[in-house]
């Protein structure tokens, strides 16, 4: 089980806080002629929580997917810890990606696997060899870490339930736990609390903030609840039709800004 | 021939504008269809009707379609003919003759490598024997009949179907069996193609001569049609038959010669001895 003791990205000395761990510049993406991202620029820093706000269809999920390499932007650069991702190939790229964890809006669990197994799978970037072939062979340390992650999202009692049998909110918590288990230094969460009850949502957001502030992660969360953003985020990015219209302190997010963000705009996009 | 006569023939013998001629492929079907097409063209000219050749890989389909009046003329292997006769009431008209006008024939045989300890059919006990395909006269029924006559039960040796005559021959030449059935026709064509050198092998058993494949029509057909087909076949020039005859190891080929059910009576006996047909035939 030496694999588990490998130095993880978190074990590295943290860079100075003004050095962004993720720098996205000029991200541009369109689907079939419809421009969805139009020159998106932002940075994520260790130790801080960024909330992405924006109306439905404004391009929040697409932004995160581009960062994860799940969509190919037409233009733009993505620098992780100073390294341009488009210059990396194969194993290097995989390793770089492994330091960024993502919670998907569509959850994406394997329904036939148990909650615990799904959470363990988040650690696959760290373990290798026969121990990684089947959940049966997962090292005990990994399973215990996954249990701890499940406990952090309040689902330890359903560890052995198949993911396909969980309620919507329970499944979403498993997805968050899976990302935790990845021990990444950047955490991108796409509406991680949309299916959670209010207390659970509060707790999970507090957990993300704790990860950022105490374990020095860089966290970005897409949220549709401005009040959650206000309570837990350090910085807010507001998207309108694929453009960043607001980026700044949470305090600057006044009512008029919010109203602009969520004004339906049928002309563009 | 006046046009009027030709029309009359066409209407009586050429019901759908064409006659269907089914061929059960025997030993070596390569180039078989073109060869038969030569024969069919000649026959068609005689009958003044298009003759369409259909090569089938198995006599069962041919017999069944003749039984239901869907096949006008059919060539069968000797054993296939037995079934055609009993099941579809097929009547043999002619078969292939040798240059001197006699009915041609062939034999089934069992061969072993030259240095094999197998000296006679009795030594086959406990050995591997490759047969041809199921229901084949020389590839299946005759060798099994030979074993039976020699008092060897089928479970005393390891008999396997190789799938056809050439496959059985390959099994022997590649050394994967101790003995294989090879009939005289396969032998001749394999020898000519350079795939078999008799000097390296020995024949340990040979069947009696079997008359060659008959060309038949349904016995219920219009007698005028039957005799027209028969005459046409008998009138074929040896040159037209040559291509086919080669495959039947009839070389140089003669014309067609007349045959009857009696010509094949040994095969009827063989079929009932081997339990292939009920005894009521």
């Amino acid at each position: 089980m030496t694999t588990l003791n490998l130095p993880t990205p978190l074990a590295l000395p943290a860079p100075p806080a003004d050095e962004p761990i993720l720098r996205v510049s000029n991200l541009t993406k369109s689907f079939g002629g419809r421009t969805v991202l139009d020159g998106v620029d932002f940075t994520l820093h260790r130790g801080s929580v960024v909330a992405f706000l924006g109306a439905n269809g404004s391009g929040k999920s697409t932004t995160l997917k581009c960062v994860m390499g799940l969509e190919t932007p037409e233009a733009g650069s993505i620098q992780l810890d100073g390294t341009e991702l488009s210059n990396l190939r194969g194993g290097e790229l995989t390793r770089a990606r492994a330091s960024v964890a993502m919670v998907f809006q569509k959850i994406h669990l394997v329904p036939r696997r148990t909650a615990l197994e799904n959470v363990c799978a988040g650690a696959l970037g760290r373990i290798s060899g026969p121990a990684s072939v089947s959940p049966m062979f997962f090292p005990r340390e990994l399973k215990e870490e996954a249990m701890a992650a499940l406990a952090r999202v309040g689902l330890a009692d359903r560890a052995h339930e198949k993911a396909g049998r969980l309620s919507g909110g329970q499944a979403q918590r498993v997805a968050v736990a899976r990302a935790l288990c990845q021990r990444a230094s950047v955490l991108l969460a796409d509406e991680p609390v949309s299916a959670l009850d209010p207390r659970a949502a509060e707790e999970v957001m507090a957990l993300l903030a704790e990860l950022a502030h105490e374990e020095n992660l860089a966290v970005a969360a897409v949220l549709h609840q401005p009040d959650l953003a206000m309570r837990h985020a350090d910085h807010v990015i507001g998207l309108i039709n694929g453009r960043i219209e607001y980026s700044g302190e949470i305090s600057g997010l006044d009512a008029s800004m919010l109203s602009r963000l969520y004004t339906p705009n049928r002309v563009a996009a | 021939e006046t046009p009027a006569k030709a029309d009359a023939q066409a209407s009586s013998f050429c019901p759908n504008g064409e006659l269907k001629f089914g061929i059960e492929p025997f030993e070596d079907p390569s180039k078989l269809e073109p060869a038969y097409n030569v024969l069919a063209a000649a026959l068609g000219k005689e009958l003044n009707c298009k003759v369409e050749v259909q090569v089938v890989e198995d006599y069962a389909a041919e017999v069944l379609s003749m039984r239901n009046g869907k096949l006008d003329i059919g060539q069968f292997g000797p054993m296939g003919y037995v079934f055609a006769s009993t099941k579809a009431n097929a009547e043999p008209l002619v078969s292939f003759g040798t240059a001197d006008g006699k009915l041609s024939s062939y034999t089934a045989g069992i061969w072993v490598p030259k240095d094999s300890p197998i000296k006679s059919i009795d030594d086959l006990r406990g050995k591997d024997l490759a047969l041809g395909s199921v229901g084949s006269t020389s590839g299946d029924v005759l060798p099994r009949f030979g074993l039976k006559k020699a008092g060897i039960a089928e479970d005393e040796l390891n008999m396997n179907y190789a799938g056809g005559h050439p496959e059985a021959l390959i099994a022997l030449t590649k050394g994967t069996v101790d003995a294989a059935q090879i009939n005289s026709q396969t032998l001749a064509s394999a020898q000519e193609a350079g795939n078999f050198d008799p000097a390296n092998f020995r024949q340990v058993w040979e069947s009696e001569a079997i008359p060659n494949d008959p060309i038949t029509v349904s016995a219920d057909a219009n007698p005028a049609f039957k005799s027209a087909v028969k005459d046409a076949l008998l009138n074929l020039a040896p040159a037209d038959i040559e291509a086919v005859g080669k495959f039947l190891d009839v070389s140089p080929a003669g014309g067609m010669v007349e045959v009857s059910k009696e010509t094949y009576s040994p095969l009827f006996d063989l079929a009932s001895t081997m339990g292939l047909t009920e005894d009521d035939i």
Partner: protein
Amino acid sequence: MSTPVATLSVPKVPNAGWRMTSILTAIAVFIVFHVFALRGTDFQLSALVSGAEGMASFLADAFPPDLDWDKVVAPALKATTVTLWIGLLGTTLSIPSALLLAVFASRTTTPHPWVYQLSRAILSFFRAVPDIVFALIFVTAVGLGPFAGVLALICHNTGVMGKLWAESMEETDSGPQQALSTAGASRFQQVTHAALPMVLGQFVGLLLYRFDVNVRSSLVLGLVGAGGIGLLINQSIKSFRFDAMLTQILVVLVLIILVDQLSSFIRRKLEV
């Protein structure tokens, strides 16, 4: 990480003992069956090694392929078009019956458990009857020739495609279908508006797989005198022309690759 990784002991898996027992039993049965099977089939890898020479000489006979245009390639292409037509009809004409039976024989779309059992029985029957038997039946009706082959392929293909389609519907997310059922859609509407659109890609893949099988189903076709590329391959074997056989196989290979490309092209088009 300077802070130790948080851990928590893993609770016992419920029913772990019973599950383990049933898994072990299944494995044991599997092994026993295989031991019998290995014995029953004289399985000996050593024979394969010791006979490698024979295979080599067989392959040597086949190389290089005989690319004589008039004698080998042109007839092979011509025969392939015949098989292509037969395969095409054998596949497309079985779509209606296969689709109907598939819908009835899938747990998620069947109108009634009895219909389900009955359709599955019919599908099993169509698969149990070897296609040569269908061929014989149709030969008695329509005489020798490709038509009998097409009819035989239609019957057999109905059985296979119906089963494959039914299973692929059972394995697909039935959520959209449930949504329509709660909207009061009839069974038939649920199928046309949810079940089928969900599995369209798989259906096309399986359909084109069957097309390619049907084109290659030389056994039936040879039997009824339909000719085709299978017959040519057989003839090449029977006359020891392994180099010609290789050419004919290459023609089939090209055909199969084309069908495969078509399959993935259509499935890409159908992607969301």
